[in-house]
Structure formats: C-alpha cells, structure tokens
C-alpha cells in the first residue's frame, strides 16, 4: 500500500479511487481533523497554534502571504509523507481552502521536485474520457508497491 497525494487535495473522486484501489490517499481533511478534533484545543476555534505558521515557513518565506504559509502548514507535511501523486490540472472549481492559486502552484512544484511517480490527468468531459481517466489511475496505482 502506497501513500498517494492527490491534487486537488480535497478531491472526492481522486481520494475515492485511490482508496478503492487499496492505497492510502493523503488529503487535507485528514490534516484538518488532526488539528480540530484534538482533545486539548489550545487555540479555539480552529486550534491554529504558533507552531502552524512555523511549519508553513519550511515551505514559503516570511514575506509570502500568510494564507499560503497557513495552507502549507497543512499540505506541506502531506507532501513530505507522499510516495506517489495524482495531479489533475485546471479543475476550474477550486474554492475555499483549496482556492489559493499561489499555494496550488507551490504544491504542484513541491510534488514534481520531490521525485516521486506522478500521474498527470485532466477531468473527463464525456464517457470515453471518463473510462480512460479511470483506466489510467488504475494502471498507475497498480504499478505502485
């Protein structure tokens, strides 16, 4: 079982396909869960302690907007943990926690420079493309240990 990071990091379809094929999908909600459901909430409501910006500083400089560093505090450790990646370019509907374009650029760069196997795809627009989409993901995940 390999740890596979998916981009967009909140994608339902990608995380489901990864888990369905017996691998571990690394997604942002899991990182959020660790933070917000801890029994010892030190900084309500979202438990962002001074440690989180420090984690973000490992990936982005201090003059980079705080939103990027905050997001990287959650996504950065996931990228470090990952053994493979599936990237879907231009989803066109990245909003909310996944809606920061600069963070998304940095995330894609860090994944690509890590040297792990990466599968690049685009979201399907018809049935034929959907079949190819699923087959490519299945073949990619099948080749992972």
């Amino acid at each position: 079982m390999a740890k596979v990071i998916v981009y967009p990091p909140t994608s339902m379809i990608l995380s489901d396909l990864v888990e369905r094929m017996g691998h571990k999908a690394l997604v942002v909600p899991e990182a959020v869960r660790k933070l917000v459901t801890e029994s010892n909430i030190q900084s309500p409501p979202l438990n962002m302690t001074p440690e989180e910006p420090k984690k973000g500083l490992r990936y982005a400089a201090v003059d980079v907007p705080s939103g990027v560093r905050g997001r990287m505090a959650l996504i950065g450790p996931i990228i470090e943990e990952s053994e493979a990646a599936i990237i879907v370019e231009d989803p066109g509907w990245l909003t909310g926690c996944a809606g920061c374009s600069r963070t998304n650029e940095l995330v894609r760069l860090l994944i690509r420079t890590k040297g792990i196997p990466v599968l690049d795809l685009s979201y399907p627009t018809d049935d034929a493309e959907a079949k190819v989409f699923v087959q490519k993901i299945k073949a990619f995940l099948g080749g992972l240990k």
Partner: protein
Amino acid sequence: MLVTKYVITSSESNILPSDIAMKIYGSKYDATVKETCFGVMINGEEEVINELVKEIRSLDPAGIFIKDRGFPPGDPRRCRGRSGGARPGFYMIESESKILPMISRALASEGEVLAAAEKKRPLPIGRLEEIAKEGLS
C-alpha cells in the same frame, strides 16, 4: 480516533441517502449518521468506520463515493445551519458530483480496455494561415 467520512451517491445510482442511513441504523456498528441532500456523513471510531464503509460500498460499488471530512457532523465551526450559507468545501463536492455519473459508468465497465482518447490539439499555425488567406481572398 474519531473520524468522519462523507458517503456521496452518484445522481444515477438507485441508492438514496436514506437507504444508506437505514443500512447503518440496522447494522451492528456504533456510528453517528447525518443525512444530507447528496449522501450521508458518518462519524465513529476509525476501525468501525472503515468496516462500515466496505459494507456501504457493497450497496452500489460503482455509484457510491467516499470522502474524508475534517470536522465532525454538526460542528458549530463549520455547520451551515449556524453560518447561514454553504460551507467552503461544499462547492468542490457540488462540482465533482456533476461528473460522478460518468465516473460511475466508467467504473462499472472497467473490464473494457480502451485506446487512449485523442486529445484535442490547437489548430496548427500553417492551417490557420491558410484559413486566414482563404477568408481574405
């Protein structure tokens, strides 16, 4: 550790969120269920939820999709009932839900081996020049 997962049904699936909720109520597992318009949220111990997810998936293997959620169901920090609008993560689910029927059909016909569909390429410059010359002549 308590975990929360979304169970989302494809719009073409014959399984309704209420069917999933009833399946969980009737199961031996100790889990909290919250029904939504697009599926259900389940919350419980990680091992319990993992087992439950396998059983729920068996209702419609190609039409049911599972996604992790960070906040527990009804958490006041995210609950849309308190904030007055859709929570930020809903838009991603809403957008991906539109292509779920295609993904479901692709999963259901997994045995078929297809040649990779040819990607649409931009018009070559030479051809564009020809078209422009034809149009201007």
